[in-house]
């Protein structure tokens, strides 16, 4: 079975849980930015959590099925249309051969996910089907989808179609959010005032937000002046190029903090001052430009507890 892509949308890519074990040579983890939403739509169509889905960004694709299929759409709120008629989000939808699926405008958030029973069946590359566009690796021919693509769907789903998911389990897409961070890495290079600015300001997500990272506008953050170490570059926000933690926050030149996400470069010469905890990486990915954001410092113990809560929530989806 294939999905024939009639219109590709703005940036539609194949993603799964990600590609691990090659960050040491600069290959990012990739994978669905909003893992929970991707996991729910997989559960709805009876896939495992490992199956690949389509990640749609802002403007979705239009596609036609070559055979009967079961799909589910979840993530950012959007109108789903089958042959032009509205169909529900967060529910399994049965399609006949030749049905055309398209989408309306987003009503919040940034990305939504389309799961197809059987999973998107592109080849595994380094253990993952996720698209790494910069390296022309994985996904559908290493790139975002284009009109005319025939996207293969697997035929081996064994799980039961769930039908629908309880409303309280669906992720929210608020216009204001709190993101929990663990301070560390190079936070000692900020002045006390700089650190207070980071944690006490309300930051606004700019349109410069994609799979590599999210840039925020707000007040300037003060770095301590110093004589720079050899090889570190001339600005106080520079360090000798180092590995970047996924989720880490850097503030080049003290302006516009950038939070790195799943397709970020694996290293560079900007000091990181805090890292978004693993439990909040999905919330971060759900933010739309304009989202008012506060970064709230938590302890390692709180980060690990939040991670456990997230895992328990995900277990409840699978019943």
């Amino acid at each position, binding site marked *: 079975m294939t999905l024939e892509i009639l219109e590709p949308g703005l940036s539609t890519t194949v993603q799964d849980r990600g590609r*691990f*074990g*090659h*960050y*040491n*040579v*600069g*290959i990012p983890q990739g994978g669905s930015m909003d893992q929970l939403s991707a996991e729910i739509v997989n559960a709805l169509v009876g896939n495992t959590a490992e199956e690949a889905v389509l990640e749609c960004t802002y403007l979705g694709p239009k596609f036609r099925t070559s055979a009967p299929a079961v799909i589910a759409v979840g993530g950012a709120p959007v109108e789903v249309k089958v042959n032009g008629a509205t169909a529900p989000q967060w529910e399994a939808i049965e399609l006949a051969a030749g049905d055309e699926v398209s989408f309306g405008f987003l009503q919040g958030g940034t990305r939504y996910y389309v799961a197809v029973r059987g999973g998107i069946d592109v080849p595994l*590359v*380094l253990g993952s089907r996720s698209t*790494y566009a*910069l*390296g*022309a*690796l994985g996904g559908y021919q*290493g790139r975002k989808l284009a009109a005319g693509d025939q996207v293969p769907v697997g035929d081996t789903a064994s799980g039961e179609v769930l039908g629908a998911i309880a409303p309280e389990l669906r992720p929210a897409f608020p216009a204001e959010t709190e993101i929990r*961070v*663990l301070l*560390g*890495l190079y936070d000692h290079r900020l002045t006390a005032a700089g650190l207070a600015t980071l944690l006490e300001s309300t930051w606004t997500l700019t349109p410069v937000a994609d799979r590599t990272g999210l840039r925020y506008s707000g007040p300037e953050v003060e770095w301590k002046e110093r004589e720079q*170490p*050899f*090889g*570190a*570059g*001339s600005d106080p926000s520079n*360090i*000798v*190029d*180092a*590995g*970047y*933690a*996924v*989720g*880490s926050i850097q503030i080049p030149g003290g302006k516009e903090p950038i939070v790195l996400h799943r397709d970020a*470069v*694996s*290293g*560079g*010469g900007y000091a*990181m001052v805090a*890292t*978004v*905890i*693993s439990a909040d990486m999905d919330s971060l990915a759900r933010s739309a430009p304009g989202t008012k954001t506060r970064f709230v410092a938590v302890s*390692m113990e709180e*980060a*690990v507890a939040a*991670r456990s809560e997230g*895992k328990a929530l995900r277990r409840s989806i699978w019943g």
Partner: protein
Amino acid sequence: MSDTLSADSLKGTARYTWGGDEFLFVEISEAMSLAANFKSNSMATRLGGRALAGVTEICPANASLLVRFDPDLLGAADLESAMREIEVEVDNASHPVLNTRLIEIPVWYDDPYTRETGARFRSGHQRPEGTDLDFAAEVNDLSGADEFIRRHHSSPWLVSMVGFVAGLPFMFQMVPREQQLEVPKYLSPRTDTPPLTVGHGGCFACIYSVRGAGGYQMFGIAAAPIFDPAQSLADFKDFMVFFKPGDIVKFRPVDEVEYKSIKEQVDAGTFVYKQVPVTFDLAEALGDPESYNTKLLENLNDS
């Protein structure tokens, strides 16, 4: 090396800090040096050797080390104490050596591809007239581009980190600090860089593995791929990325004719890199760099 840190001066100095609940960051030194890189690499190798359950990524960098772990399988405190043990082991190793390889990388310096790209982004450059090579020669007080190119390919470079994008090597010149070529990055990054551009920013050389944005000055173009997702060439049979931290690189200047001949071999699938196994001895390299480098590079002539 006169003012370069010795291995002894870095004993027990690493700083341990967390990148969220999944990353441990170990800063060996704030400043770049061969000794700091050697220690980062040695710690990474030893951590890999322990095959600790829950360690998912081990990423040695120039003067630091990033370790990713799964906190459901390995507690943060347990990982930190294992790393601190490893640091002591590395600090106490009697005669540190690294078994690695020396690789010859053919480069067409001052080529038309990087020249054209450099010209397109000239308006915001530190030195709008001339080329990046002219600028690099000037800031290093050298007679001109030719002298800069000669200095660039006459000494070996250590691959001190692989990353940024897939397979991109950062390289540190194996000469005393006062002889190292240093060039500031572009004032504002370019939105385009030809694939395989040989670049330079601060004290680091690099080879851009893929086309894209970049802020390093551009000096030439490597003739053969360093990242091959299709794994069509023999050097990529086992893995799509060519470089590993610890590799030692010798650039070899080639002209247009040889560049094109190598390109043909690449297209025909017959190109193989010239490389030899070598043992890198940190103490010897720091003790008498000039004669050590001469001896090291002779390995390529013998092969």
